[in-house]
């Protein structure tokens, strides 16, 4: 990264700060993924709950009619 030839091992070494730099980037990636996945899971949960409520209301109205 000093203008001389690029080397991957030097890149991953991060001038001796590898632990700090890569754990920062790793954590950021993890948090991004969690933020993408959790609303998708939440959506499934909400849809399930609404479906249950619909089914419950249908049973209640049938019970009232009979």
């Amino acid at each position: 990264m000093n203008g001389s030839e690029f080397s991957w091992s030097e890149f991953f070494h991060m001038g001796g700060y590898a632990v700090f730099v890569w754990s920062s980037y790793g954590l950021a990636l993890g948090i991004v993924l969690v933020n993408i996945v959790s609303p998708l899971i939440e959506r499934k949960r909400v849809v399930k709950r609404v479906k249950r409520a619909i089914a419950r209301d249908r049973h209640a109205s049938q019970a009232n009619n009979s």
Partner: protein
Amino acid sequence: MIKKIWAWIQRFSSPKHFYAISGKLIPWFAVPAFLLGIYGLYMGLFVAPTDYQQGESYRIIFIHVPAAWMSMFIYIVMAISAAIGLIWQIKLADMIAAASAPIGAWFTFLALVTGSLWGKPMWGAYWVWDARLTSELILLFLYFGYMALQSSIEDQRTADKASGLLVIVGVVNIPIIHYSVEWWNTLHQGATVAKFDKPSMHIDMLIPLLVMALAAKLFYAAIVLMRARNEVLYRERNRQWVRDLVKKL
């Protein structure tokens, strides 16, 4: 005239309308967020030069600074939404606030942890009780407080009112975070970008920083819409349009 504008606002802020529009909007935020994120990472890790004082460790700022900006930006969005919800009783605004809270808390957490990962090699300590760090930690607790109030109060309207008030009062913390590095003697370095004269930063370092910040904003926009849509479905679950829609899913 005012009546017309009000009617227009109410129509466009109706949860049903929002649900339809936001579904179409999400990819327009998500795709640019992804592309800019990749570009910003490339610029930050491969193109930006080594810092002559901090060596390679400074590359943490391409994560840390955007995360810290987002932690405050999202809080302000939440506070404005909560105020709109309280004053004009616009339900959608309360949903935006509720949808923002976990995202803001994650960004705050990321800012705190990456800051301490940068502080260890630079200051020799993961944590110090200085003004910038402490006020940012209080921000995290404000997010937690909001979420705790939201989930602990059964009645949705009461929950929105109580948690909304907390967020609005907590806004006082935002200028404290921002000016903490000027008001107090702290270890944390002063502003290098958000100040009135020219940013004191090399352009090759500034570009990835700003690209990452923009990517983070777009990412938030996409995720907050996804979360707000969930809020709409759940809070409007007794409405016919939600039931018709859910049946098809």
